[in-house]
Structure formats: C-alpha cells, structure tokens
C-alpha cells in the first residue's frame, strides 16, 4: 500500500504539467486577487513545494483558520493542562499539542514536571491505554476538524462497547463551513476566493458548503494536497474571479463527492452535536463546534471533570488572530523570528506543524 501511495503522489508532482498550469494561471489571473487557503495542510504543502514562487504577482495567497491546533482557544489549552495536572489522569494527545503554550505552561513542560501525558497516533490508542490502566482515567484531547472527528466518535463508541468507565474525550472540535461564513462577516477581512480543504471535504462533501456559498456567493474550489491539485484549485478560482462568476467547484473529484462520506458523517452525528464554539482569533462562532451528545456524557471530559474555564487573554503582542484571518502575514508580527520561534513559541501558529508562522519560519527567509 505504501508503494502505491507514493507513486500516486508522484503522478501529481509532474514538473511539465505543473509548468503548463502555472502558465495558464498567469494568463487567467490578470487582476489582483486574494485567495485564502483555508487549511493548514494546504499552507504547508504550498510552502513545501515552493508554489508561492511560481505564482503570478497578481495572486496573493492568504493562510486561513484551518489549522486545528492554531484555532484552539487559549482557555481550552489551559483546560487541557489543568487535566494533565491531575494525579489520576493520563492525558492522551496528538503530538501537535505538546508544545502549544497555554497561559502559564504547556503540556510538554507539565510532562517534564511529572504529568502523565502520552503522545498517541490515533484515538484508538487512547482507548487501549484506558484498557491497560484501569486504575487511571484516560482523557483524549479532541482537537480537529471534520477529518478527525469521525475517528474520535468511533473511539467513543468502542469505549462504550467495551464498557470502559475510565475513558473520556475533551471535545474542542470545530467545523469548517461555519468559519468561512464568519470570515466573510469579519469587517477587516477581504477574500476573493477560498481554496477549500481536501480532507475535510472528503468527509462532508461539496453539499456541506452550499449554504455558505448561497449566502455569500464567493468563489470556492476544493483541492487535494499534491502540488498539481493545489495549482488546479487555484486555476479554477482565478478563472471564476476573473470572469466575475463565483462557483462552488471541486478540483479533487478523485476523493471528494457531492455527499461526502455518509458512513463517517453518520458516526460523527451519532456521537456529536453542533454547538457554539470559541475560536482563537475569531471569537465565538455560532454552531461551529461539536459537543458530545448527552447520551454519551460519561465520555465527556468537560462534564466529568467540571473544568472551570478561567477567561485568560491570549499572549500579549501575539498576532495569531490576524494571522488566522489573513489580515497579517507572520513577518508583520513584531515577535516573529525574534521572541517567537518554534523552540520557544509565543502562539500556537508557530508550533503546530500546520501553523502559518511555523511555515513561514521553516520555508521562507
């Protein structure tokens, strides 16, 4: 399977095809346009493949709020840390969250102080941890968009089948379409088109964006993460913008369908229900979060531990909010590369593997 995977990748990295698409993009994008790649994985792929250097000067790429770690509210990060500080708790998390600074400390620092924090690679690993440690409570930190949520829902269902009383999830999940609408309503944000995330679209399908598209009539194209996928998405957007004819297009038909993945969506809806959620940099967005349904309340860490959220301000001087909305680029933050580096980050955008500041730090001078 691994061999097929990488060959698959190679087909979408063909230099000649790329060159011809870049030429088409140059002829299509004549007027200046601001395109937002919503997703952090796109941001990283764009930098990694050097796509920025290939674009005509008329195309400005903005990085959006699609890095799940970056948009996690400071209070949730503090909540994660508070859980890790409890004697009886094992915190299980994806590695991305380890170095994210909370108000006073990070999970990594707490681990060094003796907190039991384990990096896992799938939510099922956390369920297994709970089975192996019946005398402790395993809390899985649920951070992510629609891509990750179905697997976390599946983990909760498994825990229920196994009658595990020592497993729960802190749900800080978010959904993408609601964030797009919030961006369009933001007074300072100016976006001419959205490059929609591939993985999320695989799950929710093109139809999930329709209400947003109908309300805002902004050019949209869903794209995969190979360089040619991204160029194809940008080309579709440039043509829509140039012609003044917004559309909701799919540049990733080999993976994304109109209806998405019904099975994944069903499992997600079985366990989670939409709720209002606070986003770092964007504030509260109605209906943009996913809470664990009351039927599964025993698996809900927030309820189980009654985490008291103390409203703390984000770190002083950190421009994460403006970075996540595309108002500023990282070099415009006074702390970038100075006070704030991946080794000693001020904000999550500098430490997440999909963070915009991390991408600028790593891949550009």
């Amino acid at each position, binding site marked *: *399977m*691994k061999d097929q995977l990488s060959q698959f990748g190679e087909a979408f990295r063909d230099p000649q095809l790329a060159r011809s698409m870049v030429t088409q993009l140059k002829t299509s994008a004549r007027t200046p346009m601001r395109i937002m790649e919503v997703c952090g994985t796109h941001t*990283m792929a764009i930098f990694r*493949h*050097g796509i920025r250097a290939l674009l005509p000067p008329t195309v400005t790429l903005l990085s959006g709020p699609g890095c799940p770690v970056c948009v996690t509210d400071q209070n949730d990060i503090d909540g994660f840390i508070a859980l890790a500080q409890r004697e009886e708790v094992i915190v299980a998390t994806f590695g991305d969250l380890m170095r994210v600074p909370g108000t006073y400390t990070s999970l990594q620092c707490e681990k060094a102080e003796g907190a039991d924090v384990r*990096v896992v690679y799938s939510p099922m690993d956390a369920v297994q941890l709970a089975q192996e440690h019946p005398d402790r409570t395993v809390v899985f930190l649920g951070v992510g968009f629609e891509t990750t949520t179905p697997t976390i829902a599946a983990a909760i269902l498994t825990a229920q089948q196994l009658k595990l009383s020592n497993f729960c999830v802190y749900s800080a999940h978010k959904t993408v379409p609601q964030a797009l609408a919030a961006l369009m309503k933001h007074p300072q944000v100016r976006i001419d088109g959205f490059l929609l995330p591939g993985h999320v679209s695989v799950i929710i399908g093109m139809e999930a964006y329709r209400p947003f598209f109908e309300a805002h009539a902004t050019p949209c194209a869903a794209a995969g993460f190979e360089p*040619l996928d991204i160029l194809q998405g940008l080309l579709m957007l440039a043509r829509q913008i140039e012609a003044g004819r917004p559309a909701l297009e799919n540049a990733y038909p080999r993976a994304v369908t109109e209806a998405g993945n019904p099975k994944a969506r069903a499992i997600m809806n079985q366990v989670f229900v939409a709720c209002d959620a606070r986003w770092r940099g964007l504030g509260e967005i109605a209906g943009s979060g996913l809470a664990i349904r009351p039927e599964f309340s025993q698996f809900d860490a927030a309820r189980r531990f009654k985490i008291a959220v103390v409203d703390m301000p984000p770190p002083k001087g950190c421009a994460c909010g403006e970075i996540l909305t595309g108002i500023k680029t990282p070099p415009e933050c006074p702390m970038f590369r100075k006070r704030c580096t*991946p080794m000693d980050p001020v904000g999550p955008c500098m430490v997440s593997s*999909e963070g915009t500041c991390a991408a600028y730090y790593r891949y550009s001078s």
Partner: protein
Amino acid sequence: MKSDKILLDHGSGGKLAHQLTTEVLMPMFNNPFLAQLHDGAVFEVDNGRLAFSTDTFVVDPIFFPGGNIGDLAVNGTVNDLAMCGAVPRYLSMGLILEEGLTFADLKRVLESVRTALDRAGVLLVTGDTKVVPRGAADRLFINTSGIGVVPEGVTIGATGAQIGDAVILSGNMADHGIAVLTQREGLRFESGVTSDTAPLNGLVQAILAVCPQVHVLRDPTRGGVGTALNEIALQSGVGVVLEEAKLPVSPAVAGICDLLGFDPIYLANEGKLLCFVPAGQAEAVLAAMREHEFGRQACIIGRTVSDHAGRVVMQTAIGGQRIVDMLAGEQLPRIC
C-alpha cells in the same frame, strides 16, 4: 539462586560485578588490551594525527528493525571518526544498565556490539559498567568513545566546503528514523523499513582513494540531511542548492512520511554520509561509492553556490523554490 536479570549488586564492584565482567563482557570482547583488565589500555598508533570522538546512545526502543542500540553505539562512533577522514582503531564502551534488564537482552545487544566491531575492524580496548536503580535509566544506555588515525594529507572539516562543490548523498534518506519511529509505543506497525545502521569507514576509504581532497564529510544522523546541510552551509559560508527530484527516498519511507506529515529530510540516518567534493571529481567519487556496499544508491543531490551563503535552498520537483531550514525540535505527527 542465580537471577536472569541485572540486579543493583551487579554494579556494586563486588562479586556479582566481577562475574558480569568476567563471565559476560570479557568472553564477548576478549583481546590482549582488554584482557589486562587494567584501568586503561596502552596501545601503539600509526604515524599521523589522531581523531577522538565520543557519543552516548539512549535510543528508544533499544531493539528496532535492522538493528539495536549495540550496533548503533559502535557504528555511531566509528562513523564520527570516519567523517574526520580517520581510520578508526580503538573504542571504549561505557554501559549504564537499569536494574531488572534481562541478561538475555543484554547479551543480544552485546552480540551486536561484537558483530559491529568486527565489521568496522576496530577493537574494544577499555570499558566500564554501572547499574542504576529501576527507573533511573531506560533499560540500557551506552556511551562509546573512539580513537582513529588520520592519514597524512587528509584534511576534512565542516568548514571546508567551497563554491562549486558537488553535494553527494550515499543513499536513501530517513530509513533509520522511520524504522525506529514505527516501533514506538502507540505507533507500532510493520512498515518493512529497516534501520540503515552501518560502519562507514570503508566507504570513506573508498572515497578518499579516488579523491583525497574531499572537502567535507558528514553523517546526517539526528536532524537528518536538512539539518546537516544547514550546519555545513553555515560553517563553510556557502549556499547550498538542492534538487528535490534527486533526493533519494524509498517509496515505503515516502509513503509513511506523507501519512504522518513528516519531512524525510529531517529524519535520522545512521548509515549514510554526505560529501562535498570538487565538481570535477564528483563522477569519480560517485562511481567509487556505488562500488561499495554502503554506497550503492549514492547520488548527487545538489551543489554549492555563492548566493545565499549559509542557507540551503531547494529547487522543488515542480519547479518551485523554498528554503530548507534547520529542524527546530523533534518532528511530531500532525493531527489531520
């Protein structure tokens, strides 16, 4: 009753410690220097300058596909010496054993140490063993130090790269990093990827035979090829241009990296080397490397330039360009 596990008393300096040395360690590495059981070893060296290196190995897990902490500890120091252009001769080994380690595991590691020593043609001439209480170490830590002789006329250092050099990599990147990673708690899966741990002194001799004036040699271990190249660019004050399409990565490693969001250029290698040689000699060096068992997939991955001194820039496969910075902190798997 004789225990099948390491006890704290094995480090006491008493009877059990003596048994550990005479019954386990000595038979494994016996040679006239070590047999003296003196506080140090006295040995002859050839003409030339000496190279001296030390490294401590704390890899987790200690057994992984393609090797274990034992061969890693020998090869690591052998390679550090080889990267100075030296012929490695003598090694020391310090063992830190955690109480409760089984003799079976210890012996398995020591067998690998012996095989690696033989393969590299070096002698273990002095050593030390400590036992620490359970929890004070993670099963087994190994320190190795080594001495090698640098032949006349060979001057290799990190500052030696010159404008116009060809940058050669001896084989596929990231095999060791992926082999170890896929055995870690939480991620255990069969990837078929094995560690590339290997002694590189023979390969270095083959290179020096055709090109004594090699400018830089470096084994890109932790931090990978990306970090090693950055260090060389900085120390030598040259710019490096890499060609993504030429970077050798096995399909299995590329697939796993895609899945986990890792960049193979930052993952560890244990049996690969980078060399900077004058462009005119690049083909001859390449041919010599490909003749050697550890250099079969050697290829030219880039060159040095006078622009952007101290920086590494990648020409991406689709024709774009980006900076390759040093790795900041260990790569962590992404969320989606």
